[in-house]
Each structure stands twice: as C-alpha cells, then as structure tokens.
C-alpha cells in the first residue's frame, strides 16, 4: 500500500507527559481512517501532530512520500491538508461574516475567483447564498459546522483532518453533517482522518480504524471486523459494550 499520509514512530511529549508514544499509522489515498479512544488517549494529539499543531519530539510524518519538518509547515501543505475542529462555536471568528471567513483561506493561498468559489462552497454544504453575509452567532450549531467544513473545502484540499466533527451537535443534526461529509468525500475523492469517541459514527464513516489508549495504538482493525465482533483487545470490547447504551446492572 502506498500511503498518502503516514506517521512513523511518532512521539509527542508535554513536559514529562507522554501524549503520544511511538505511534505509527498509514492512510491510503482516498481512504477514510478512524481514530477512537477515550479522552486523553492521544487521538486528537495525533491529528494535531499531523497538522503541525503538536510538539513532535521524535518520529516523522510522511505526506505523499515526502517527510515533513517537525515544526514548520509551508503553505503548500495547508493547501493539501485542512482540518475541521470539534467545537463549531469556538472555531469561527465571532466578528466576521461567513463571507469574510471563507475569503480568508483564499486570500492566504492567493486563489483567484473568490466570488464564484464562495458561492460554490456554500452551495456544496447545503446552505445557499442567503447565509453569506451572516455572522456566526446568527447560525445554529449544525450550520456553523457546515461553514467550518466549507472553509476547509474551499481551497480544494486532498486530505481532511476531522476532530470530532459532530460530537457537539444534536443527534439529528449529526446525521445531516455526516451525510454531508460522506457526499463531499465521494464527489472529491478526499482522504479523511477522523477522530471520534463514538464507535457508531466511526464505523459508519471509516473503512479502517485504530483504537488508542494512553498514547498508544492498542488495536488496528477494519470496520467490518469491529461490527462482526472480531476483537482481540479487552479495551476495544469495553468500548463496544459502552456504545450499546446503558444496561441496568451492567456496571457494578
């Protein structure tokens, strides 16, 4: 398999705390790869390390065959890789209109034809041009997350890093956003790396996934294996049980 993104023995430490402990993953082009685990398992750290937002102490990240610098990322990298964050309330500038928000990545990358692209991006995430001159406080959570997705898509990246894109949303809105993400991926042949603590969401969206705990990958498996219950680690089994909902007396 020729990987489009791979992390090789990646280690991230914050002072004495080992957030990522020699983690390796390979993601094939066009694939959707899931990372699951509880809070503090290092799944978001791994995603942020790929985006250049975590202090990498050792190991390397390879994008398209070229190893990346530990700290510095150039513009070409961000042209290729974009990220959508968990909290749609915190990731949009409160004093900027949707139009201004979407213009920013275009200005940074010197992309011409802003007018047409903004309209197309809005259309693509199902919002339409009437949303163009609104502020983020005039939008609902689901609409904000759509804007965040539009902002990531507008410069036509190949790889999207999704950090719990729906966990701040209602169940009914989550379905809409997940459908949108699937649709865009199909249309543009994107590669996704998606972090979530919800096994249902990850198996729905991803073909393969890695289960993380305490900064390590404890198990790698395909979604089909997970659904069929072919698991080897107890930790994954616990996650499976937890995802099925509350059962009285199951918790002693």
């Amino acid at each position, binding site marked *: 398999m020729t990987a489009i993104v791979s992390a090789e023995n990646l280690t991230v430490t914050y002072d004495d705390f080992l957030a990522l402990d020699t983690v390796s993953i390979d993601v094939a082009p066009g694939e959707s790869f899931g990372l699951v685990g*509880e*809070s*503090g398992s290092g799944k978001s750290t791994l995603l942020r390390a790929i985006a250049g937002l975590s202090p990498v102490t050792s190991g390397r990240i390879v994008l398209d065959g070229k190893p990346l610098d530990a700290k510095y990322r150039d513009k070409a990298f961000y042209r290729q890789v974009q990220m959508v964050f968990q909290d749609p309330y915190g990731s949009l500038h409160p004093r900027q209109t949707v139009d201004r928000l979407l213009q920013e990545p275009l200005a940074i990358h010197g992309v011409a034809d802003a007018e047409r692209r903004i309209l197309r991006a809005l259309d693509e995430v199902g919002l339409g041009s009437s949303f163009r001159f609104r502020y983020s406080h005039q939008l*609902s*959570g689901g609409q904000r997350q759509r804007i965040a997705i539009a902002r990531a898509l507008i410069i036509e990246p190949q790889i999207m890093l999704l950090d719990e894109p729906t966990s701040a949303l*209602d*169940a*009914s*809105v*989550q*379905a*809409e956003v*997940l*459908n949108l993400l*699937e*649709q865009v991926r199909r249309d543009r042949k994107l590669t996704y790396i998606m972090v979530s*603590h*919800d*096994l*249902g*969401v990850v*198996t*729905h*969206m991803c073909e393969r996934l890695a289960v993380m705990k305490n900064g390590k990958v404890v198990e790698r498996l395909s979604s089909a294996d*997970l*659904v069929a219950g072919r698991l080897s680690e107890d930790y994954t089994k*616990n*996650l*499976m*049980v*937890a*995802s*099925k*909902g*509350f*059962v*009285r007396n*199951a*918790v*002693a």
Partner: protein
Amino acid sequence: MSTMLTVDDLRVSFPTRTGLIEAVRGVSFTLGRERLGIVGESGSGKSQTGRAIMGLTPAHAKVSASKLNFAGIDLLTAPAKVRRSLRGSRIAMILQDPKYSLNPVMSIGRQIVETLRTHENVGKREARDRAIAMLEAVQIRDAGRVFDLHPHEVSGGMGQRAMIAMMLIAGPELLVADEPTSALDVTVQLEVLGILDKLVSERGMGLIFISHDLRLVSSFCDRVIVMYAGKIVEELVASDLGNAKHPYTQGLLNCMPTLGTDRHPLPVLDRQPEWAL
C-alpha cells in the same frame, strides 16, 4: 404511586426586541418516584422546562402554568425565600459540564460542605465526614485526597461525580439532571449513569433526565417525554420505544449511526411545519 410533582400547561417565554419567543408552550406531566426522561433537540425547550421547575429561569422571562406543584407547594406563588430553601435541599439539579459548573477557585470538598451546611445545621467535622462518605458513594477512590483537590485537577468524569455528590448530599427528593453525561466519554458516561441509577433507586428519588440522546434515555428511564418546538409531541413507556408513533420520535431513533447497520446516507429528519403547531 404518589405524585410528587405536577406540571400543568407550563409556559416559558422570553421577550426580545423582535417579539416574544415561546420556549416552552404548554407542557404538562406528573412525576412520582420514578425516572422520567425528557428528550428533544437544542431549542426544543427541554432545559427550560427543567429550569422552570428549579426556579432558575432568567428574571426577564415569563413563566406561567395552570399548576406547578411540588409536594403540596405551589411553586409559582411561593415566595423567593421558600424556593431558595427548596433548591438544593429538596430539589437539586445536575448540570451538563463540570468544567463550567463547579467553582474553579474552591476545593471540591469545600463546595460540597458549603451545600450541606447551607441546608442543614451540622458541625464542620461532621460535614467533612459526610462529604467524604458521599464522594465514596459516587465511587471516587481515595475520597480524602479528592476532597482537597480543585476542579481543574480532576478529570471530566470525576468532576461530574463530584457534582452529583454535591447535589445528593442534602438528600433531595427530586433530581433534575440536564444532560449530565453529554460532556463525558462513552465509557465514563456509563459509569456515571450506573452511579446515578443506583442512588436514585436506593434513595427513592424522583429523577428528570434531560438529554438529546433518545436511545440513552430510553435505556435508562422508565418513561420518556419527547419535546419538539416547546411542546410534548409524544409520551412513551421507555420499553415501548419501538412502537413510537410520532414521525419526529421515529426520526430521532433512526438518525443515529449504530454498529452493524449499513445505511448510506443516514436518514435525516424531515421536519414538518405541522409538528410545531
């Protein structure tokens, strides 16, 4: 089963510059010593219903009801002093996010002791012992150490347990839990629910469990009320969820991706304007 709380035609509205926003529009239900779930999306009025029962509705909002009765006390006409004495001692509320609802500059133990000593006349020594016993009851290991920690020093799950301990220490009869586990990991979520379940059944409390996760609520509660646009659209016995009649309830049930079902794209809610009528 004795009725503890009666809510009849509860309305909460907020005057704004653009007119009156009706958050809750005529909600009626009764509650005994049981677990009642209230489910709905953001903006459906489920939290405002809980807050109106607690008496935590913002001052500029208007609350009206033909009956809002808790254990023989009319909550609407009760003076502020009576409501204050109810709040925390007989009716308690667990909030969503322990990060924002605990006092960041006070140790967890002191916050629990503060609640206890506000409502009961106990000595310092006894208050401390009871707080530690309560922390142990919510399955915090090494409760004596956690007693002296500040909220930022503990994890989300631990913080939520501390909040549950704080709310239960005065022995309330009615507990309103507003999305108590939404900010927590799935595994921790179940532990916290397990604790809540045990305490509710041991102490014979009434519980109102507010959440947007219909499946979770139905696995936990005895009865479920589904709210949409400030109104109750359906009331169900939790075990009878499969026979939900209202398209909104069915939509909520269907839209969650679950293990072992392969549905692309996921069914989404097709909101009908007549649901809100």
